[in-house]
């Protein structure tokens, strides 16, 4: 009967109740939607970056991080790669050689980062493959051929098939020159990538840097689901525990990206917290007003012998109903909107012609949200719990009233 009384009580002022429910729903829907968008963009960005760089998990020489250079290489035997690739959740492994050099043409020279890659692997993993604007991407039969960014091509006045020279130091510290030709030109939207980044087949890179057959600066592990990262990381660490190899998550390899995401997530949380606070303040006012309006009625209930605890339960139930309906509405609306963006995405190309880059990496202008059960339950549970906590003060007020004063 108390449940019935509470249910009917919230509907005695239908307009106010609807406004309250819509406020809860709107606030929660916005929170779910924007968090889902942010998480989707982070996931999409991380996926692109790790696929282009050294994977979700990177194996390398333990000394490499303290002074990244091509002479701090390690041997990644085929047997280790096959062992890793047999693990659940591992999509594939990729060997890379990362070094610095100078690209020269008749028109000038530019300091560049040269990445030696396995074309057959990158064809399946690297997003660069989809950004070719001239020529084509590399394949395993290519010898001294490279793909370069559109910015670099413009500065060195290079086109597909044109010659350029790469000057660098090999692992022994000798100055070396190698002639190569441009196989293709890519354009990612990132000034850093398009202007100062070159990819070459790993065989050519080994020759250039004078590395042995299985030598590389990194062995990247690309995962099917990023959520499996920690578990796979531990398994690989067990595999190489006897060897002098460091196994690192991408957050340690590209710390600037991890920091950026952490910072951005933090500022988003502050924004969401402010939004939720404003909405909760409205809800608090509604519940308090509803209680203050019914002081006489509560006095009658107390006079009839209602225990204060039962009266508190009635008010709590009213908040439970408001919270449940509001949260359900918010989760359905916010969840569906976010799900639609997850499936179809939002293309911001027309608004962001210049593109967006974070720490030199281009972010896709087609945003996809990422809705998870955890996000829905977490935000819904938080708003619901906050609604209940907000009813504590009105509950207290209702049972502290003077029966005589109210009935006078």
């Amino acid at each position: 009967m108390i449940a019935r009384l509470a249910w009917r009580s919230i509907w005695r002022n239908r307009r106010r109740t609807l406004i309250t429910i819509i406020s809860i729903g709107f606030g929660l829907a916005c929170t779910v939607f924007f968090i889902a968008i942010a998480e989707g963009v982070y996931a999409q960005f991380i996926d692109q970056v790790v696929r282009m760089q050294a994977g979700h998990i990177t194996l390398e020489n333990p000394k490499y991080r303290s002074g990244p250079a091509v002479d701090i290489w390690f041997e990644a035997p085929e047997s280790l790669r096959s062992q890793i690739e047999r693990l659940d959740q591992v999509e594939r492994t990729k060997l890379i050689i990362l070094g610095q050099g100078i690209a020269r043409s008749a028109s000038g020279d530019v300091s560049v980062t040269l990445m030696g890659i396995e074309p057959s692997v990158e064809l399946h993993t690297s997003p660069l493959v989809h950004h070719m604007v001239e020529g084509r991407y590399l394949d395993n039969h290519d010898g001294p051929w490279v793909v370069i960014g559109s910015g670099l091509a413009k500065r060195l006045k290079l086109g597909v098939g044109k010659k350029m020279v790469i000057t660098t130091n090999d692992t022994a510290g000798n100055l070396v020159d190698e002639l190569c030709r441009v196989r293709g030109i890519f354009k990612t939207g990132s000034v850093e990538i398009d202007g100062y980044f070159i990819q070459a087949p790993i065989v050519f890179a080994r020759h250039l840097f004078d590395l042995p057959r299985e030598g590389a600066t990194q062995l990247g592990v690309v995962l099917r689901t990023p959520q499996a990262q920690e578990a796979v990381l531990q398994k690989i660490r067990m595999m190489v525990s006897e060897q002098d190899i460091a196994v690192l998550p991408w957050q340690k390899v590209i710390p600037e990206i991890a920091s950026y995401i952490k910072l951005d997530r933090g500022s988003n949380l502050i924004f969401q917290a402010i939004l939720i606070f404003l909405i909760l303040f409205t809800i608090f006012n509604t519940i308090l007003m509803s209680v203050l309006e019914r002081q006489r009625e509560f006095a009658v209930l107390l006079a009839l012998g209602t225990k204060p605890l039962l009266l508190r339960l009635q008010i709590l139930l009213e908040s439970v109903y408001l919270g449940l309906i509001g949260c359900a509405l918010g989760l359905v609306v916010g969840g569906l909107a976010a799900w639609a963006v997850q499936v179809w995405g939002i293309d911001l190309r027309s608004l962001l012609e210049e593109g967006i880059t974070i720490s030199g990496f281009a972010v896709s202008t087609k945003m996809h949200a990422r809705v998870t059960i955890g996000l829905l339950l977490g935000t819904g549970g938080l708003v619901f719990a906050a609604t209940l906590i907000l009813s504590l003060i009105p509950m207290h007020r209702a049972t502290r009233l003077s029966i005589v004063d109210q009935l006078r």
Partner: protein
Amino acid sequence: MANIVSLQKVTKDYGEGDALTHALRGVDLMVEAGEFTAMAGPSGSGKSTLLNIIGGLDRPTAGRVEVDGREINTLSKTELSLLRRDRIGFIFQSYNLIPVLTALENAEYVLMLQGIPTAERRERVREALKEVGLEGLENRYPRQLSGGQQQRVAIARAIISEPGLVLADEPTANVDSETGKALLDLMRRLNEEKGVTFFFSTHEEAVMKRARRLLRLRDGVIFNDQAH
């Protein structure tokens, strides 16, 4: 008969300093079970204060108050709630029904507080509503009932738990004289047939005449106590 209400030298003061008001000044009163007692007096004479103190809604400044054999000054808030729930029925001047509950549910509420099973309380409420002449109106909300009908629901709510004492604060003040007379007839009948003790305040001469005992209050003192 045993006393259901016993007051000894009960005083009640409000405010302090220059604003100090003596609402009751040493009231002594005994009410036996089964009485049909009215209390009359001008506004501010202390009628409502006396009802509130007997009903455990307010505490006296000094003096001893016993209701149904229990000294209410010594009872905690929870014990007072239980005393009101189980032994005292209230009828208010402005009915004070819960607007979102039907007539049946309003009367049922006290039985729910007592933990009576739904089937039993529904049966008892239907009988009580029939008793007060509201058969067929059980599912109407207070706004769908006339003032007299609402007060009948309030009477049913007050007697439903078979309390030892029913306190009524000017129960006929908000209804026309015909309805007031009918309500008083009902209360009197419940008193005579079921032995319910009624103790009520009134302004109206017609109501006073129907009481078997009439107390007259002025300035917080009972100055006249006569049986009819």
